[in-house]
């Protein structure tokens, strides 16, 4: 069984300077309640691993607006002027990572791999300073795995073993981020008993999940 905790208790677990892998895509499928609790806890110097920096008032944008992020590995900043301003002012260190590469690097960590070989970024600034390997005549960039201290993810439904079901495009990076946290905390809209979920629909098995938080956002259907 996985322990159910409050969003506040989840935030209290996270020390300053932690590396956070946070699920969501432009704040859809983002663990908003846990993010709100971290903003309230004012935890500083966080490192963030996310697909996008979301909107100023939604998703991880709230952590950026509160100046709690000191560095990030992210693929898209276009919707958030605050993070671009912080980057230009030298207040935040950004590693821009192609989205597919970011996903595979995070997945690699969760899967016990040291990294991945990808053609994405060849001939661009992305390859600078990295090893290029040739396999069967084709070039690939060696991209190291990305691990986190805490993975914070959002699910539609969770059972008490931490098995997760996602809804529509809110799945996005969540099952991947969940694999790569030393501790993974899921915020779920519905928390159900073991046996209530159709095993065929579980997109993230509970083995990756440590704690469950009840979301205040609840969608039916």
């Amino acid at each position: 069984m996985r322990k159910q905790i409050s969003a506040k208790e989840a935030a209290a677990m996270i020390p300053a300077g932690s590396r956070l892998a946070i699920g969501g895509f432009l704040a859809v499928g983002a663990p908003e309640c846990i993010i709100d609790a971290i903003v309230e806890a004012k935890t500083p110097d966080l490192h963030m691993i996310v697909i996008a920096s979301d909107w100023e008032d939604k998703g991880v944008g709230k952590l950026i607006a509160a100046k709690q992020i000191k560095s990030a590995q992210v693929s898209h900043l276009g919707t958030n002027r605050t993070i671009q301003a912080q980057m230009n002012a030298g207040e935040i260190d950004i590693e821009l990572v192609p989205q597919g590469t970011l996903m595979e690097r995070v997945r690699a960590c969760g899967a016990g791999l040291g990294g991945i070989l990808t053609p994405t970024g060849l001939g661009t600034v992305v390859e600078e300073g990295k090893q290029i390997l040739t396999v069967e005549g084709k070039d690939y960039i060696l991209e190291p795995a990305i691990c986190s201290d805490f993975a914070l993810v959002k699910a539609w439904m969770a059972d008490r073993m931490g098995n997760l079901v996602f809804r529509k495009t809110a799945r996005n990076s969540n099952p991947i981020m969940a694999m790569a946290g030393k501790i993974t905390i899921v915020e779920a809209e519905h928390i159900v008993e073991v046996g209530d979920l159709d095993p065929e629909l579980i997109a993230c098995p509970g083995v990756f999940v440590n704690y469950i938080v009840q979301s205040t956002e609840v969608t039916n259907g």
Partner: protein
Amino acid sequence: MDKREMIGKRIAQEFKDGDYVNLGIGLPTLAVNYIPEGIRVIFQSENGMLCVGPSPDEGCEDKDMINAGGGFISELKGASFFDSALSFAIIRGGHIDATVLGALQVDAQGNLANWMIPGKMVPGMGGAMDLVTGARKVIVAMEHVDKRGNPKILKECNLPLTAKAKVSLIITDMAVIEVTPEGLVLKEIAAGITVAEVVAATEAELIVPEHPHMIGSFGQ
């Protein structure tokens, strides 16, 4: 017809029945309005969906249903949802027939620059580098010149690249240009535009077929 709509209509003619296609945000998405009758194109959204449908009516939006640009979408019959790693496996693994993206610059070697202007604008590459690397056909759709009237089709890109030598076709409001090993070949010109005008608006050298009848036209 509006310039952008004309480009959208011309993009749509590139798709075959059953193609899996990823459209970049902005101008490329206009193509969905012009898919010829009898042709079914399956659109991917790289956050994790196939069979993307049109934007829903106001009041019918679902908070868990967005495309890669953050706009609300619907699902068509046959739709599937999956995680972002699988979505990019589809893209990088060569399972997408065509992707259409905008460009800041594109050059005679098929190089594309569309993700940053150093010191000015750094939105990040998002999924663009993977799309351009993995899609079977990369189509650039854009206005032929920038807001100041400067050419965007160059001898060589000087902005940071999105990918090297991956573009195969360029569709603009003035022309359709194919990227070949020999260089850029002028295939079609827009109605009301002359070859000389296209050549003047293009910094890269254009290979212009000798016989005018070998140049098609579009946008009538």
